[in-house]
């Protein structure tokens, strides 16, 4: 009997001890980029977003400033270098997503709102790839109201609670979803610390100005500690009888609410779900930090059998006159991974699979998405009251006037690329420019007369090339791959028609080339004058994608004052996404009022290097020139 008891004790106690031990010994470890970090000093990332306004009309520019910081160490730089910004519509579907490189914890820019957006509440979400592993409360969700110019009878809209999708994200265990009071407690541990006293002080020389008048605004350091820096964004916007805030007190149970009496429209708070111990374990290092560059990863599989293609060579090339090469071997699940350097920003990329001396065709490419997985929680309907409808009509009218008449000084999203400095093989043994010689009609003639160390032959209806090996004075084995305008190309028959007129130059590497783990027995790189690769070939033999990156190339400190005597219908008088306030200096600038009288608000929001949150507001009135009363 005693033996049985002992056995039972062993079998029952052991699993319990194993399960409890991490908690008892305090060895709760989570992993970020293959590093074990103790829970006390866990590496985290959080974003904080501000926009130049809260309301927009389609076709206008949305200007934003995003602060990215580590809530455990706000003064330090974050590891991630890539920021994703998504605009979610009221159904929580991303309608616009762009990517940006950032340094120094701040990303500022602007994006033109497409005409295709319908009216409603939108959410601007800013996140890094690593933050997708964290609860949604770390991600900045900025509610915005966007109206389409054509939606005349828009009187009500729907908002939804944003929650993490259960299937992909953090799965709450039974009894683990939190009540509102618990949410606050949890948010307090992750959110930046707010203070009642003013960290910075906001001054204006007067409280009211006339239209087209000017006003001096100054920010002084308040309770900033010596050496502490506050990074703030400043905006001056016209007050409207509605504003959107994410609030916990929203009564969304009845799924219907009216905004008749309230000017502040409370939107449901983001669903806060705290990972259980096991869920945290499985999700904590789901996405690594992109500290080296953008991570392009995906899976390759057979399109017929859907089986992953294991241990295959996937190459990354760029259609360009200067060849670029990177490669990755697929793992057991067919996954590949590339870290893209900034020189590949805003370039077309070409993924191919090399199989022996050919480029494999018909492969199922699946590229990993960087979208933020969110799901829709409880929904509620909000109706405008008469005052709000009137205000909104005015905003839309002003938006329309500005779109038609205002000087559109902001350029469209420019495609900025950095030049590739040198080919991946650095120096070719020989470069032949056919235009320097007598005209030759086809590639065979070019090869025989100009490329003395290359043989271009046809055997058994297949073309191949052989390159002279310099050390042994013999030819390398036949190969069917060349680089055509920087991309691997094995349809050598189609080259036959290319003569002196079509070919710009040919680089020949005779020596055996070692590139990382790869070996090339000589290499031929052909650059044509038109720089084109047959689209039908690319469709069969490659996966092409655009590596679009938003590169803000100018300062966003703007008042956008138009040149008089043009009418000035600005609703936002000032916007500066980044102002640094040190403990021993102040910032001062002049603001010019527009032609629209009314009540305006100066908003200063940001964080300090010690993680304190800055929020200072001040109301000013713009009086109509000549009149004594402001039109509210």
């Amino acid at each position: 009997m005693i033996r049985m008891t002992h056995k039972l004790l062993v079998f029952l106690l052991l699993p319990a001890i194993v399960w409890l031990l991490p908690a008892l010994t305090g060895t709760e470890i989570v992993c970020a980029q293959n590093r074990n970090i103790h829970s006390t000093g866990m590496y985290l990332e959080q974003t904080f977003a501000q926009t130049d306004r809260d309301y927009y009309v389609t076709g206008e520019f949305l200007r934003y400033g995003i602060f990215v910081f580590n809530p455990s160490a706000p003064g330090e730089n974050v590891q991630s270098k890539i920021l994703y910004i998504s605009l979610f519509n009221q159904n929580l579907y991303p309608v616009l997503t762009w990517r940006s490189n950032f340094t120094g914890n701040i990303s500022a820019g602007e994006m033109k709102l497409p005409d295709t957006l319908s009216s409603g509440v939108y959410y601007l979400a800013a996140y890094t790839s690593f933050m997708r592993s964290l609860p949604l409360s770390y991600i900045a969700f900025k509610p915005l109201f966007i109206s389409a110019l054509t939606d005349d009878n828009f009187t009500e809209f729907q908002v939804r609670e944003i929650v993490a999708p259960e299937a992909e994200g953090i799965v709450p265990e039974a009894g683990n979803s939190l009540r509102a009071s618990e949410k606050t407690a949890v948010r307090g541990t992750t959110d930046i610390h707010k203070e009642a006293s003013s960290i910075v002080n906001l001054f204006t020389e007067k409280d009211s100005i006339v239209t087209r008048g000017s006003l001096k605004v100054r920010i002084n350091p308040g309770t900033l500690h010596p050496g502490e820096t506050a990074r703030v964004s400043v905006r001056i916007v016209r007050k409207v009888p509605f504003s959107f805030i994410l609030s916990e007190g929203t009564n969304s149970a009845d799924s219907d609410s009216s905004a008749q009496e309230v000017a502040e429209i409370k939107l449901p708070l983001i669903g806060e779900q705290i990972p259980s111990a096991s869920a945290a374990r499985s999700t904590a290092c789901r996405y690594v930090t992109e500290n080296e560059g953008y991570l392009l990863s995906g899976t390759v599989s057979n399109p017929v059998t859907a089986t992953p293609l294991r241990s295959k060579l996937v190459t990354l090339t760029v259609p360009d006159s200067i060849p670029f090469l990177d490669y990755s071997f697929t793992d057991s699940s067919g996954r590949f991974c590339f870290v893209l350097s900034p020189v590949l920003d805003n370039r077309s990329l070409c993924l191919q699979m090399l199989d022996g001396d050919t480029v494999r065709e018909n492969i199922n490419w699946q590229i990993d998405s960087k979208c933020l997985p969110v799901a829709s929680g409880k929904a509620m309907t909000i109706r405008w009251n008469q005052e709000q409808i009137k205000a909104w009509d005015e905003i839309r009218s002003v938006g329309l006037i500005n779109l038609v008449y205002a000087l559109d000084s902001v350029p469209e999203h420019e495609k900025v690329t950095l030049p590739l400095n040198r080919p991946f093989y650095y120096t070719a043994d020989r470069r032949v420019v056919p235009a320097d010689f007598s005209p030759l009609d086809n590639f065979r003639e070019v090869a025989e007369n100009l490329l003395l160390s290359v043989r271009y032959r046809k055997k058994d209806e297949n073309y191949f090339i052989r390159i002279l090996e310099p050390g042994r004075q013999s030819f390398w084995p036949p190969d069917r791959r060349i680089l055509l305008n920087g991309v691997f190309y094995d349809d050598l028959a189609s080259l036959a028609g290319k003569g002196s007129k079509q070919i710009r130059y040919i680089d020949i590497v005779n020596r055996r080339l070692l590139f990382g783990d790869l070996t090339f027995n000589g290499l031929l790189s052909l650059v044509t004058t038109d720089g084109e690769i047959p689209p039908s070939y690319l469709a069969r033999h490659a996966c092409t994608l655009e590596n679009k990156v938003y590169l803000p190339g100018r300062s966003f400190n703007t008042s956008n004052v138009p040149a008089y005597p043009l009418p000035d219908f600005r609703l936002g008088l000032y916007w500066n996404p980044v102002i640094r306030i040190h403990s021993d200096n102040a910032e001062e600038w002049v603001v010019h009022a527009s032609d629209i009288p009314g009540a305006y608000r100066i908003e200063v929001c940001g964080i300090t290097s010690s993680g304190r949150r800055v929020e200072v507001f001040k109301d000013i009135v713009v009086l109509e020139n000549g009149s004594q009363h402001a039109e509210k």
Partner: protein
Amino acid sequence: MEVNMLKNNLHSDESMKWCRIMATCFLICILGTPYTSGQERNCACSDSASFAAAVKEKLVAHAFWFPYGMDTMQYFSYWMPGDILLESGKVVRNESIRYHGIMDALLWFRSSDHQTAVIEKEQVAGFNLYKKDGSLYARFRKMRLRKELSSDSADFFLQVLTEGPVSLYKLNRVELVRNTGRMEKRPRYYLLYKDEMSLFRPARRNLLDRMGEEKEQMRLLLRRNHLWVSQEEKLIRALNLFNSAVAKSQP
């Protein structure tokens, strides 16, 4: 009575045995849990499978054909583990490398297929060679200079002997002796002082001439320490002493 005692003894022995088993299991749990839990957590990374390989910089090299035979004189050292500092600012660590004195080239032994190759000089900014115990054996840096009787400047791998206000570099040149086929080491030293780099023949007079205003300070230093600067070790020691004296004198 004896039977009962025997039974009791047996019983207590079994209890002890179970206790021991439990204690052993408990210890295994304590020692094993952090490791196993760490493993569990690592495997959840969806991107980490080929992440390490993707981050690693790719070396570009051309096959080496041993054009100078197998004479070890042509090399600076045996194959040694080393770090290669790239022009891009990144570092490729722990590769088998050696320096070739005749070609002034960095050779790379690719362990995956045992190929020997010459790394593209344009890609490399410098390299460090380490001994088996992990200590630094030699440090090389790529520098642009013009050799005597040469019309244009070129990049050379120079061994860093000392660096500071006065820096000393060595070009580990190996030359083929004409008509004999023999190889001979003919090192060249370059002294960098006040942003001026020039060929330097290790000699007391040459050193003092190069020191300009600090000539007397160097003379005193050599006299006090009885340093014979025509020998490489003593020259390095003299320059190190001078550099540390300069560093001390500066606030």
